């Protein structure tokens, strides 16, 4: 177990009349090599939760343990934690600042005190991972397109060699092509490198296809923490929370209601097509 979230809570403006509870007694284990989807509406606490995981925010109660050690203990090296638990914020292209792409990606490793050669090696490897070749290295980050900037920002975090990579809404503001590119990239990274990936999102459609496990947050509580199949069976409760199951699930539900005896444990298009085709005989079309 890499990271253990032990009954943490977090409140803003603690003790005042304006106290707001962002997290309410959350517990979870984040193991190695898992692909996790963290879903919740705006204000559910998901962004606050991920900032807990790399020590940016300190819980008002409860503990976070990294390999057994309390990350807020006095002698804990939190800088190293930030390398191991990489966090890519929403619209990460807003953090780019260097004169050229390669320097910006090297910023992270430099902060870890690594040698110039090591920093460069890591930066090159990270940029290759996100599909950006040599011709981009000397360019100014501000001359790139939105999707390219985003990939540079992600490379900047990858260069720190994280064991757990958290991406907060990596597809925000991207068009369908950009979205497919980024999700494809993330999925490919997961397969190639030994990393746990936590994908924070609003959209079940994006997440259902890739993840092994879904954690659902609603109003500061962790309401579901299970495999996609089991989480989506609660589609009515999800709707009440302002979320939804994947589109195809609703289609299958509706078909079932209309008399076609199809399974509703379907979350991807391919599964849906296969399921309907399997019942072809009853359809006569």
């Amino acid at each position: 177990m890499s990271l253990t979230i032990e009954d943490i809570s977090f409140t803003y403006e603690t003790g005042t009349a304006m106290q707001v509870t962002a997290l309410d007694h959350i517990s979870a284990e984040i193991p190695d090599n898992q692909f996790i989807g963290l879903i919740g509406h705006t204000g559910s606490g998901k962004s606050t939760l991920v900032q807990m995981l790399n020590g940016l925010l300190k819980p008002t109660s409860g503990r976070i343990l990294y390999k057994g050690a309390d990350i807020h203990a006095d002698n804990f090296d939190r800088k190293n934690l930030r390398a191991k638990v990489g966090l890519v914020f929403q619209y990460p292209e807003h953090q780019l600042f260097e004169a050229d792409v390669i320097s910006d990606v090297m910023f992270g490793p430099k902060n870890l005190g690594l040698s110039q050669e090591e920093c460069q090696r890591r930066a090159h490897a990270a940029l290759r991972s996100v599909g950006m070749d040599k011709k981009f290295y000397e360019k100014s980050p501000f001359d790139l397109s939105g999707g390219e900037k985003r990939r540079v920002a992600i490379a900047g975090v990858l260069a720190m060699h994280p064991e757990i990579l958290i991406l907060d809404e990596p597809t925000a503001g991207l068009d369908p092509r950009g979205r497919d590119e980024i999700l494809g990239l993330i999925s490919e990274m997961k397969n190639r490198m030994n990393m746990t990936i936590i994908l924070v999102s609003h959209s079940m459609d994006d997440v259902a296809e890739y993840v092994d496990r879904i954690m659902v947050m609603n109003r500061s509580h962790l309401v579901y923490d299970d495999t996609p199949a089991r989480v989506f069976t609660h589609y009515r409760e999800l709707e009440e929370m302002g979320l939804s199951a994947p589109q195809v699930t609703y289609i299958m539900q509706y078909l079932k209601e209309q008399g076609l005896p199809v399974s509703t444990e379907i979350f991807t298009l391919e599964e849906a097509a296969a399921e309907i085709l399997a019942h072809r005989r009853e359809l006569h079309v």
Partner: protein
Amino acid sequence: MPGSLSSFYGHLKTQSIYCEMYDCFYLPVCREGEKTARKVFFYMISIQKLIHDYFRQDEDGNVAEKVRAVDGVDLEVHAGEFIVILGHNGCGKSTLAKHINALLYPTEGEVWVDGMNTAKEENIWDVRQKAGMIFQNPDNQIIAQVVEEDVGFGPENMGIPTEKIWERVEESLKTVGMYEFRKKSPGRLSGGQKQRVCIAGVMAMHPKCIIMDEPTAMLDPSGRREVVAAARDLNKKEGITIILITHYMEEAIDADRVFVMDHGKVVMQGTPREIFSRVEDMQELHLDVPQVTLLAHELRKNGVRIPAGILTKEELADALIKRGAEQKGRDRNVVTHH
């Protein structure tokens, strides 16, 4: 009722004459033997052979690079239509949009809004009043620290008397459903609420048409629904012409017409059904198609006999189950309608 409108206007188009002096189109009308000229603005928006080039300058101020963002677009919009312009980032849709309210001028070609040529300097403010615009980032459009003051910004600029400003502000806020928030600070609103305030701000100027440039790109799903519902309301209840620019296909399903852009050109146009049934073309353009349509397409590829252009799950169920039942009963081919 765009169907009847377009045939009516189509008829007018073949008969109209451009008048240089009044800078509009007019239609000679025969009435009991006498010929009278009557000004007719039969297109709300008329874009003719529009080309827009962006010039990038190098350090010495010389033109280093020319980028053609809009490459020969012809587009007409009738009053009261709900138009969606789809396209991936960089296809030129935003550039196109900014021509409609004279934020940009054509490099070549012409843009006419409500009978006014946008390239003429004396028309700018009238064009901008008639064609309002909403942008992508809700925060970067709100000027004031109180909702009602921001909605009043447009009328203030137009020199509307104080009394009338208050009437317009109240009216617009009620139209978008944000009247209870009028005294609130914009900083405390959600994304969807902020965009609705921006829409109210534009409505207070009494436009005939509103262009929305990716208004939902930065919003969460519920915010997106809010904004699109507000746009649809304005179109149906107030008769405002809406031009919605987006890359989310679910926002295009209820449009009257859809234009798809790629590399500065309009590559497809038609009703939503016509556009979305061309699944392979859409996919080649890296655009989304509704999941239902994709599913139906997959089934068709595997030989299932259902019509093309299915947009909703109800239509799919209808095609699969009910038609199937009919066929079972009658044992003959189903006639496909599209």
